[in-house]
């Protein structure tokens, strides 16, 4: 029981670390596409790890089976929704950000 709780807490904390990295990425990265890059990957992994921790904490039961189904759902849906967002932004005409040439220091928004 002790090992089970330790593993659960470790998984939830690892998921929280990934979610924090994703949040920092959303604030710090320069344009829309890199922000979706940060949000999509790290949020997917963070949610999956946190839910896996909850499933480990619950043990073998119907609730942990439901959590595993939710993990599968998130693993499929979250990258696809980020793909849809990025594709819609590309069709709308938002230009990806490139590192400015020498002399230009400020990052262009949009």
């Amino acid at each position, binding site marked *: 029981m002790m090992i089970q709780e330790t593993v659960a807490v470790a998984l939830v904390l690892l998921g929280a670390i990934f979610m924090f990295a994703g949040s920092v990425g959303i604030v710090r990265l320069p344009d829309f596409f890199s922000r979706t890059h940060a949000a999509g990957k790290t949020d997917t992994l963070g949610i999956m790890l946190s839910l896996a921790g909850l499933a480990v904490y619950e043990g073998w039961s119907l609730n942990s089976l439901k959590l595993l189904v939710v993990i599968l*759902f998130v693993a*499929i*849906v979250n990258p*696809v929704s980020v*793909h*849809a967002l990025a*594709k819609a932004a590309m069709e709308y005409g938002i230009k990806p950000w490139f590192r400015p040439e020498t002399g230009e220091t400020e990052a262009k928004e949009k």
Partner: protein
Amino acid sequence: MIQPSDSPIIAVVSRALAPFIQVFALYVVFHGHYGPGGGFQGGAMFAASLILLRLSLGGSVAGNQFRSSWATPIGAVGVFLFAGVGIVALAFGGEYLNYAFLPFGLEQASLRSFGILLIEISVAVALVGTLVAIFDDLVEGHEHD
């Protein structure tokens, strides 16, 4: 009417996921007595799956599953069912929506449970029809038309 997305990823994933969302919506509707959920939430999830198909596959393909012209009548049927359950209880001697007076010949506790289930189903039906009708009316003058 929305044109289909040219990305196969979006089309395949939404087509694969929509039936599961619909089955889970039915579970939420019928399990509303014992767990979180109920008619409103389940109906909203069912309507969300139909709207997901409309967004990703376009109105002409998604209309094969649920036509735009069905939406408003189905919403009206749900409202009619809800009012009908209440009026049947009223006609058999009780108050409006007093499930104990429904004429199904069961004992009182299971009669109330059955009446609540009927109300949940009618709320879900009304919500599916109304939400899809609102979505279809909103996108009717879409610029890709």
